[in-house]
């Protein structure tokens, strides 16, 4: 079954204050501005998300919120701890619907990308996902079953094709 998936790494976040929690780091102004521009490009590309899954960490929650304008009318958002840890089969089982989006963190987004494209999670470091980057995958949601269709980098510019 051919499926599509958007992998999203959270936007640029502020540094944690001394003694502050890493989990509670919000997006920086710059991160918010850049990711909003990415969302506009996704919108122009006709992107319609029907399931928006995100990690519970604040920077992922805020990034997911910026993606909400792309959510289909009957689309839903869902918070999951599966995106705040190394990718598992349980996470692959969440690839449902026409176009789900996963908002998470490095190094796990890179591991997930490597796993879906090559079947090998350990190749994560060779498939890095930048802050605020969106990777569109197509294929079967199983290890080695997908390929990269497009990458929307946070820095702007035209979408790239391929990994």
């Amino acid at each position, binding site marked *: 079954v051919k499926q599509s998936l958007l992998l999203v790494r959270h936007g640029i976040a502020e540094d944690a204050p001394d003694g502050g929690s890493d989990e509670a780091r919000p997006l920086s102004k710059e991160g918010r501005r850049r990711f909003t521009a990415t969302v506009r490009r996704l919108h122009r590309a006709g992107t319609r998300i029907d399931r928006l899954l995100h990690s519970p*960490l604040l920077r992922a929650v805020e990034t997911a919120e910026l993606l909400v304008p792309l959510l289909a009318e009957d689309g839903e958002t869902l918070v999951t701890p599966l995106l*705040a840890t190394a990718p598992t089969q349980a996470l692959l089982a969440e690839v449902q619907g026409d176009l789900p989006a996963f908002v998470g963190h490095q190094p796990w987004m890179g591991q997930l990308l490597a796993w879906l494209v090559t079947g090998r999670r350990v190749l994560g470091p060779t498939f890095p996902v930048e802050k605020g980057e969106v990777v569109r995958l197509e294929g079967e949601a199983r290890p080695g079953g997908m390929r990269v269709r497009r990458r929307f980098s946070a820095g702007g510019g035209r979408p790239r094709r391929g990994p």
Partner: protein
Amino acid sequence: MAPAVPAARWLERLEESIPVARRGRDPEGVHRLRVAAGRLEVWLRLHGLHVLRDDLGWLRSCAGPVRDHDVILHARPPASWVPWLKRRRTEARRALLAALDEPRLPALVRALGLLPPLDRAQAEERSERLLAKALAAAAHVEEDPHDAGRLHELRRRVRRLRYAREWLEQEVGSLERLQEALGQANDAAVALRLLGGYRDAEGLAEYRSLLEGRFCVARERALRAWQEQRALVSAPA
């Protein structure tokens, strides 16, 4: 500068209600869980956030069927209907327990705990939008007071407005009374809906008439409450 409004108070109540709902000995546990989730959902609206609202809606809807059966069973329905209601409640409770064990729930609590407090000035502006929506829903009911769906929508809007005003420490007295009347109409409507799914309901015609009567009385009371208190509702203290 007006103090910001953190979610902590109702987040703590949500966390406290989860083990009580899970144990199931006190029906108030499920009720408190739904109320806390509803209040936090409004807090997110006042924050201008869409994310996490679906998760709270999911939690409320998982607890809803248990609460519906608890309310009907508490109101002493006809004895012949009780075994069916209890069986259905057991099924609903099983589904709720499965939901409470899902990793989505601790993730939701964790995410809510990381959100910054509400900016009160922005929240007050957003509260005005909730008022506008409640007024629109009330106008919709006045066009056709017999439409149970419109009444249900008004109940939801009034609940959100009340919770918003409570977050912002504004007067809610009139809203509370209106919400109570709308709640009574809803209780009767839910009982009628469940009775509609009961195969042996033929012998309960008299009870059905009683419920229909309760629904009509509660609806009239709610409409009167709305008309009497419209001005108060429209003007927050």
